[in-house]
């Protein structure tokens, strides 16, 4: 399985990232390479849409933790939206939903 990454710049320093596929040990480095340059910009706002991510393992969580740390250092924001149940549960069990902003008003996988 693969991971598709599409980045849209809504307006200056506001990015929306659409992911589709699986985030695991193989695709995680690619995701990190794509997100890190955005996270390292000052005062950026990054929204990651996980609607079409049907699988993520702990390596994927690791990527989001490093991205979160980078955004904090650069006074930027990270938000995850449209998580599928399985992926959302992973953030909940690990307690990461308490430090990463997750908008669960829209459920993913539809």
């Amino acid at each position, binding site marked *: 399985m693969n991971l598709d990454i599409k980045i849209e710049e809504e307006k200056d320093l506001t990015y929306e990232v659409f992911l589709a596929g699986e985030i695991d*040990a193989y695709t995680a480095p690619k995701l*990190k390479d794509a997100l890190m340059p955005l996270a390292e910009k000052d005062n950026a706002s990054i929204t990651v849409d996980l609607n079409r991510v049907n699988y993520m*393992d*702990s390596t994927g969580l*690791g990527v989001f*933790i*490093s991205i979160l740390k980078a955004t904090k250092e650069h006074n930027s924001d990270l938000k995850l939206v449209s998580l599928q149940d399985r992926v959302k549960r992973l953030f909940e069990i690990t307690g990461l939903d308490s430090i990463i902003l997750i908008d669960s008003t829209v459920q993913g996988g539809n």
Partner: protein
Amino acid sequence: MKPLKLDVKSYQELLKQYIVSEDETSLYQAEQFSKMSMQQKISPEEIIDVHIQALKELYPDLPAEIDASLDFLMETMISYGLAYQEFQSLREKQVELQSEISVAASMQQSLLSTTKPNVKGIDIGAISVPANQMNGDYYHFVNDDAGYLGIAIADVIGKGIPAALAMSMIKYSMDSFRETQRNPKTVLENLNRVVERNVDSSMFITMYYGLFNLNTNLLQFSSAGHEPGFYYNASKDEFFDIEGNGLVLGVMNNASYEQYEIQMEKDDIVILLTDGVTECRIGDRFIEREEILEVIKEYIHLPAQEAVESVYKYFEKLQDFHLRDDFTLIFLKKNV
């Protein structure tokens, strides 16, 4: 059949025999010749060179065009010869690495070894199997004279060597804690600081730590983002998820953990596991937690060690004997 020799003369005889008879025997010998050549690290262009020499001796009046075409063929084989030599050297390197990893794996095994304590009144079963050679899962029992049994189960993100290294760190930090610091909340808070200071930002560890009081049968525990286990309440004959919210180790320096309690009664069972169990995959499908519980129920009546091994064997078979992630499972059965 005569034993083969690796020289132009034998090749020439073989070639001649084949051209005259076109028999399968010669072709079989050609196959032997090719295998011997590989053992002797003879590259394809050298075989073609031998072929050209043999051919020229057999047919001195070979047309010049054929002659040229054979030189051309040899030229095209050079890169294949190089690739073959490179493959040989990479294979040797791989064998070296493999043996280094085996040594590291057995070192890890003795470093992280834990003895399953014999505790009166509790039947303990534990199994931990790495997906590759080195294990990123870890469990540990501490049985002290004061009547307490400490139970740790942990899972490092990822698997293989980096995970195994991080796990050794956990083990040594835990060894260094004083006995007064053994209550679960404190253990996790201390470990969190160690992990946060010492690992890469994208690395983290999930962990469950429980402390069982053998006199009062009270199990106190805390969880750092660990996959929830199950608790079987015998009087209600029901299984419950062992909840316990807490952030994974290594992400925030000042994370604090809540402590929970279960009062265990006769025939109650505590089941602890890592996500190698819950992330089992059959083809494209994941196993749901309910299905795991069904399998556990199937074997839970057995003695604890036999039970965890049976559950493992079941999932191993389900995944075609190829684990995707490290697998750890612990049963604590209160039998008095």
